[in-house]
């Protein structure tokens, strides 16, 4: 593919708001996971909750979008000067030439969960103030973002479970390459809700401890929430130090709804496609941000795929021990973590991971280290067997 510039990017997770907060926490290898105290949830698990989401208010004109997910969306958009960069792009190219491509797994479903507790005792009706379209629906965060910036062009929500906000890069890259748009807001937002907390618990995939990716004793995920955004544009002559999206690879497992292909065949196809798309070989990759959910099956499958392709030569780790598995937002968050690693020349660590699983022969990087980095690969794999890998690079 033709490389695309990440002209602005930002992320908000349990570690805090923005690049500086994350840079500091990544370097300190500080985990933001804490025992779950979210809403009325009664589960023995740890989560990565973003502080002060409910203190965020939406502009009056967009009040119909009000829900935890869109509050988090706005927090994310208004961090690191990202919103200003979007407004500049809209002014430069036109409001119909900036596309919106956002990933989510559950959008504002929490609003519906809460509304179901407040059904009319006689009629069973949901409360009048509940707005399905602008909160629960998967498109709500993309429509909110489009309306917030008064954009008039294409927009879509991509919802492929935990690969959602990696696949937005693929969809946006296609449209930018074809010239149907000149800039794209890509990213992902997912927020804590009862469906995912109780749902992953029902599958016995949540850990009662902070998650331990690739640890021999790993026993499940810690669910997190977060928002991450990037502004993608074409740039034929980027200045040194510019982070570029170089390749995207997508595949399907065609295996099972909630279990990965045992040997990670779909994962391998996605990584190979991403390398092909970037015109790079396995020897060109300097860091792999693994999907690394910390379930026994997922890490084993991904590890086999990475080992088959890269052997034990390329340092890689999962950063989910920092802020949890942010589900549909994870792909975008981890792409931004790769962007930071590339610009900082610094491999992130892997809080929570202790003794590595000896049956997974990859070069797992437990602790951070300074290293010259040119190209990073980011993996995202979702329920339903939807896989996406991204290759990012920094210009010399």
């Amino acid at each position, binding site marked *: 593919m033709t490389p695309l510039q990440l002209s602005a990017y930002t992320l908000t997770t349990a570690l805090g708001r923005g690049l500086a907060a994350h840079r500091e926490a990544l370097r300190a290898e500080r985990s933001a996971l804490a025992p779950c105290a979210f809403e009325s949830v009664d589960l023995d698990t740890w989560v990565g909750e973003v502080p002060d989401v409910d203190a965020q208010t939406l502009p009056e004109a967009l009040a119909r979008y009000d829900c935890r997910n869109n509050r988090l969306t706005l927090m994310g958009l208004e961090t690191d000067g990202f919103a200003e960069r979007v407004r500049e792009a809209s002014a430069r190219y036109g409001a119909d030439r900036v596309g919106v491509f956002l990933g989510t797994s559950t959008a504002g479903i929490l609003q519906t969960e809460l509304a179901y507790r407040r059904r009319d005792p006689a009629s*069973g009706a949901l409360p009048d103030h*509940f707005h399905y379209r602008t909160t629960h629906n998967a498109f709500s965060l993309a429509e909110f973002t489009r309306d917030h910036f008064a954009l008039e062009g*294409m927009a879509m929500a991509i919802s*492929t*479970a935990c690969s959602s906000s990696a696949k937005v890069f693929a969809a946006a890259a296609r449209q930018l390459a074809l010239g149907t748009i000149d800039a794209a807001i890509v990213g992902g937002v997912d927020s804590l809700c009862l469906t995912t907390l*109780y749902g992953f618990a029902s599958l016995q995939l949540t850990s009662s401890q902070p998650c331990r990716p690739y640890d021999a004793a790993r026993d499940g995920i810690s669910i997190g929430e977060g928002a991450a955004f990037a502004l993608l544009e074409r740039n034929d002559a980027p200045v040194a130090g510019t982070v570029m999206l170089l390749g995207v690879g997508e595949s*399907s497992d065609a*295996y099972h709804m909630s279990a990965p292909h045992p040997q990670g065949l779909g994962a391998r196809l996605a990584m190979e496609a991403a390398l092909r798309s970037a015109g790079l070989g396995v020897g060109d990759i300097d860091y792999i941000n693994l999907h690394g959910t910390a379930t026994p099956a997922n890490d084993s499958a991904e590890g086999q795929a990475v080992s088959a392709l890269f052997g034990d030569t390329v340092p890689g780790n999962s950063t989910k021990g920092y802020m949890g598995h942010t589900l549909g937002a994870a792909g975008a968050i981890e792409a931004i973590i790769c962007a930071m690693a590339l610009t900082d020349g610094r491999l992130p660590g892997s809080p929570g991971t202790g003794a590595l699983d000896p049956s997974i022969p990859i070069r797992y990087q437990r602790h951070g280290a300074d290293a010259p980095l040119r190209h990073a690969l980011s993996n995202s794999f979702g329920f*339903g067997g*939807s896989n996406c890998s991204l290759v990012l690079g920094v210009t010399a």
Partner: protein
Amino acid sequence: MSAAPLQAWINGIGLIAPGLPDWATAAAVLRGEAAYVSAPSVLPVPLLLPPAERRRASRVIRLSLGVGLEAVTHAGADASTLATVFAASGADGHNCHSLCEQLAGDDRQISPTRFHNSVHNAAAGYWGIATHSMAPCQVLGAFDASFGAGLLDALAQVAMDGQPVLLVAYDSEYPEPLHAKRDTPDCGGVALLLSAQRSAASLASITVAPSRAPAEVLGDAAMEGLRQNIPALRALPLLQRLARGTAGPVVLDYLAPMQLQVDLQDLRQ
């Protein structure tokens, strides 16, 4: 940079809608050769799925597999090789209702199957299991503009990769109380097999560009009702042109103020 045209050949069509169990029936109605008779949507049994998955197959899965396979069969294509784009305004409404109802009660121990069927990409996941396709699947939504969003991504994939792409746009209903907030009346879906190259199966070529013109409405009140009430069926004016064999431009609803002008050419008579 000026936009490259989003262009493809339509090689196969699938359709399921209330009163319209397949594309042949719908085409006859769209040509005015048969009267539209309202009836609940008929969803085929997904015989391709292994028995365990078949038992769990919800309405959206039967719907999306049904329209997708009809388009693939119509085109004489091999489903196991096809990249797919699934576009839907929502996921499985009945499953979602059950989850929300249970999570509002005292016993929140929800069923694992209900949970993994709640993801927006459940239909795409079952499609992959049924067809053994490891090709990329994109799953997206844009509320009432979901068909247009799916068409834009599918055409972009055709243009970028030169490979055929199966677009499956489908919607299903929520039961009450959500039905009062989102009143999609029944299941409905459209599938188009899009290809970069013309072949013996090609029915027409389409070129898509943004427009601000109003969307074409259908003359028949019942068909117009379907177009308005089931987002995937915003495709009906395009399908009417295909059924009638009339070349020329048709504007489809997308996301205000942006609409999609679809120019049909080279229709097989």
